[in-house]
């Protein structure tokens, strides 16, 4: 055996070790995230009694969808509340997402393409927000919302979520636009497009992964948010899911299968969105932000 091939095998072994280490790490991460999900799902199809049993039943002896039926049945009060929270969340998250995209796209494009006075400062200011934890803004924002008469409206949440979501969205999208050669727009303008058409017909489709990622990011952020929703809203008919579920079940004390079923339904939109669009999300993170 030549020395070259010995060296190669050794290097090969080292790579193998890394690879196996990586795999084990990934499996652990998978367990870490998947086991609670699985437990949630299993508990949600137990009866209230079975859920409290010790030692626990791993798989329910008598699986039942009763909790789901109760939550999704608009004729009883539990179902009414739950469905209302669901629609509230959907409304707030969707509106936030649409506004976030509508603002982030032109803002990111402007930051990427135009050299206007104060551009650097503005961009820095946009990122500056991200250096502080959101709770710091809780009380000031509440006071602000009261002054604006927005307490107990969904508008207060939408505004807040936009404030927190937009900086990263703009930054992410700007990376995208930076990577789209300006010559493409020039070519389009020479080919007969107006400036806006060049943006709309050529640049927008190319940045679609970035826009989708921005949308997912905004949606998930708004969908899961708890503290601001908890602070700004206290009328039952306006609550969003995270707060609604918490209140609702602390009143009915420990209906664990109901709680788990509600949590599961709440996580569904996020999971479905992610599964459908993860392709774009990954591309956005790698193409937009990392590559230069």
């Amino acid at each position, binding site marked *: 055996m030549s020395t070259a091939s010995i060296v190669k095998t050794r290097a090969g072994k080292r790579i193998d070790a890394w690879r196996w280490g990586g795999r084990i790490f990934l499996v652990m991460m998978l367990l870490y995230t998947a086991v609670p999900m699985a437990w949630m799902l299993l508990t949600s199809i137990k009866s209230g009694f079975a859920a409290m049993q010790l030692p626990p039943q791993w798989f329910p002896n008598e699986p039942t969808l009763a909790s789901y039926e109760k939550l999704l049945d608009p004729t009883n009060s539990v179902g009414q509340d739950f469905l209302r929270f669901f629609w509230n969340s959907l409304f707030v998250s969707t509106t936030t997402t649409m506004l976030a995209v509508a603002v982030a796209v032109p803002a990111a494009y402007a930051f990427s393409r135009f050299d206007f006075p104060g551009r650097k400062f503005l961009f820095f200011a946009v990122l500056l927000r991200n250096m502080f934890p959101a709770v710091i803004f809780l009380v000031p924002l509440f006071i602000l919302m009261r002054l604006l008469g927005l307490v107990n409206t969904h508008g207060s949440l939408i505004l807040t979520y936009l404030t927190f979501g937009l900086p990263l969205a703009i930054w992410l999208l700007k990376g995208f636009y930076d990577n789209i050669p300006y010559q493409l727009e020039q070519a389009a303008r020479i080919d007969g497009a*107006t400036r806006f058409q060049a943006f709309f017909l050529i640049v927008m489709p190319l940045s679609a992964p970035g826009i989708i990622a921005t949308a997912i990011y905004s949606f998930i952020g708004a969908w899961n948010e708890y503290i601001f929703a908890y602070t700004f809203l206290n009328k039952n008919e306006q609550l969003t899911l995270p707060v609604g579920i918490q209140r609702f079940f602390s009143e009915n004390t420990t209906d664990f299968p109901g709680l788990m079923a509600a949590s599961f339904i709440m996580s569904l939109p996020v999971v479905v969105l992610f599964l459908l669009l993860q392709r774009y999300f990954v591309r956005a993170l790698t193409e937009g932000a990392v590559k230069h």
Partner: protein
Amino acid sequence: MAHVVLENLVKTYGAFTAVNNVSLKVEDGEFVALVGPSGCGKTTTLNLVAGLIPVTSGEIAIGDHVVNDMDPKDRNIAMVFQNYALYPQKSVYKNLAFPLQMRKLPRDEIDRKVREAARVLDMTHLLERKPRELSGGQQQRVALGRALVRDPAVFLMDEPLSNLDAKLRVQMRSEIKRFHQDLKATIIYVTHDQLEAVTMADKMAVMNGGFLQQYDSPAQVFAHPVNMFVASFIGSPAMSLIPLEASTVDGQTVLTGAEGWTMALSPLNARKVQRSTTRKIVLGARHSTIKLAKNASPNAIPAKAYTVEPTGDVTFVQALLSGAVVNISVPPNVAIAPDEQIWLEFDQERIHLFDGATELALKAD
């Protein structure tokens, strides 16, 4: 097709002037090459003509219209970009169709024109591919095709061949040239490859530092460079420029080298030197006009060979003379060793003389 007139065109970026007072006229159907070193303002000039950047001052006319304030889309131009700028998400077909769609042509006419352009450029079989699935040469042809599907007043091409390998470049060069002849197209063609300019263009505009240096036919630019920059920029290997001292010996005007040798001048050249205001004269000579001998002769100047570079066709010999490197080409069968004593004879009909202070070519009248 139309002519293009630039008048006192200026483009500044802050305190920096990228294009400085450029005036030139491109006749209808003419192929003009814009050449110059990197950063001299070629792309900027082209972008000004295209309307992609606003002019600082001066005037641009295409046909009989001043287009200074016109949008690119209204200038009726087609442009081939240095990096092709193909729309990555569109198929070749849609890339070619885009300019026609923007002009709201009927669908069947778009289809006819796209297929015609594809046929001419021999890429019918590529129509359904995406740009990233094409080789560099094929992308280049699509970029050309996108300009060709319309019949614009002017074609602007920004170093369209610079990304191709040498062989493909030669091939595309002749294709563009034939395309120009067939269409009688007005073309402004940017390149920093002076060989491309010389082989393709009717006229060449040599730029340096934002200034237009010379605007003439390649043959004229080659034979009568107006200054030392043009002289050294056009031609490969570059023209040798040798700084000398003019003096009068026995009523005869001669040039003296740093080594002490003198060169007698023809009457015409002597008159040029006499008319100049400085004694510092720069002698320019192209490699092929210098005769190299291994033995002394009356008009030859002694020198030492410095390096010898056989290329197959010709052998290039470099010699040091008066502090400058002199390039000489000799037939490949002439064997010369480094440090060998050689004698150089300059052809009085074909040397160039420049004013050492202003760097301008000397004139006889």
